[in-house]
């Protein structure tokens, strides 16, 4: 596998949220606005890339690997928790609004299955550079997935797209033009489940069709 494939697999083939369905809690909770989703994505990117790097560096030496192997899960958790604490403090200092709207979900990055999953499945058995690329690809794939969910939720629920702070696209005029109001429901928990469910169903429909085509091609 070359670096490009390694990087791109996180987007579609092994998208952590849409294909392996990991890290669902923040995906449902903080996707009320695009800004929150992007903020979460940045935090996960930072933690995942660095944790993959540190863990692969720890495990690169065969002798070290032998020592760490029996206690690897606690070691990984301490590494991840430290990085998350760094993110939490930096966000609190420089991005206070984002810190408040993400709330409890910033410390909860520690128990996000994607990060421990990548540490166990990839970083602990691969070279540092490969692990960084894998982490970056996975984190960007996750961010993309969060963006997609939050895009539909904010657009249908509020009639706007908040990209970052003041940078906001107001599409309420479109709703006025069609003489409908934004559907409040999508900004509420119900909307999170609905949007995520429908996106997964669309993805399943596309994969099913592809498989049928592949089968027909073989015949």
């Amino acid at each position, binding site marked *: 596998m070359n670096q490009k494939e390694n990087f791109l697999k996180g987007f579609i083939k092994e998208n952590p949220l849409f294909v392996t*369905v990991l890290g*669902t*809690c923040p995906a449902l909770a903080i996707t009320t606005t695009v800004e929150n989703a992007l903020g979460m994505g940045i935090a996960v990117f930072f933690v995942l890339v660095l944790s993959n790097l540190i863990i692969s560096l720890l495990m690169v030496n065969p002798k070290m690997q032998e020592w760490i192997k029996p206690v690897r899960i*606690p070691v990984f958790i301490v590494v991840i*928790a430290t990085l998350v*604490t760094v993110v939490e403090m930096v966000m609190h200092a420089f991005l206070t609004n984002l810190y408040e709207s993400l709330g409890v979900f910033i410390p909860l990055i520690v128990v996000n299955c994607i990060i*421990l999953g990548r540490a166990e499945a990839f970083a602990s058995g691969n070279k540092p550079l490969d692990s960084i690329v894998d982490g970056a690809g996975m984190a960007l794939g996750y961010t993309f997935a969060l963006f997609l969910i939050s895009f539909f939720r904010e657009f249908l629920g509020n009639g706007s797209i908040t990209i970052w702070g003041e940078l906001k696209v107001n599409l309420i005029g479109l709703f006025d033009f069609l003489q409908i109001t934004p559907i409040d429901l999508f900004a509420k928990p119900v909307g999170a489940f609905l949007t995520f*469910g429908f996106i997964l169903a669309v993805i399943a429909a596309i994969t099913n069709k592809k498989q049928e085509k592949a089968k027909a091609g073989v015949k």
Partner: protein
Amino acid sequence: MAELITLAFAAFVTENVILTQFLGICPFLGVSKKRSSALGMGLAVLFVILLSSIVTWTMYQYVLVALELQYLRTIVFILVIAALVQMVELIVKKVSPSLYKALGIYLPLITTNCAVLGVAILNIDKNHTFIQMVVYSGFIALGFMFVMYLFSMIREKLDYSPVPKAFKGVPIALIVAAILAMIFARFGGIV
């Protein structure tokens, strides 16, 4: 007393962990295919949430605050929870093999259940006193168990229903969860 009842009701229904706070979605989707496993997971979570909340709250109030190390709470809490889960597993295995058989496979999964760490952190963020913390954690966990059980019953029936091919599995489960969330959101008017 009235305050505690309100807190308990809010934790159980209107602030339900799964349907409104989105904590513990992984086990909610993963282990809810059968009633027995949903109940097993629910019981294990109840046990661990209560225990871990008591330990982490006490540690925070009497150790971290005294040493002015509040910023270390994420690291300390996750280590305490991981150690606690291991300890509970060992003790249950020794003391009651039958209980271990029922809960055993769910216990290791709980370390990465965001509801456990989430409730520990929420208890600190909301400045709960000891009694409030116990009531809140207990009813959050009961709410988790209740929704898990309810959901598993619906999922068992879903297996026999004609679901469109694209919606099979997780998507239809999420749509069902959306309907449940809608029902639970309506209870908000009572408090």
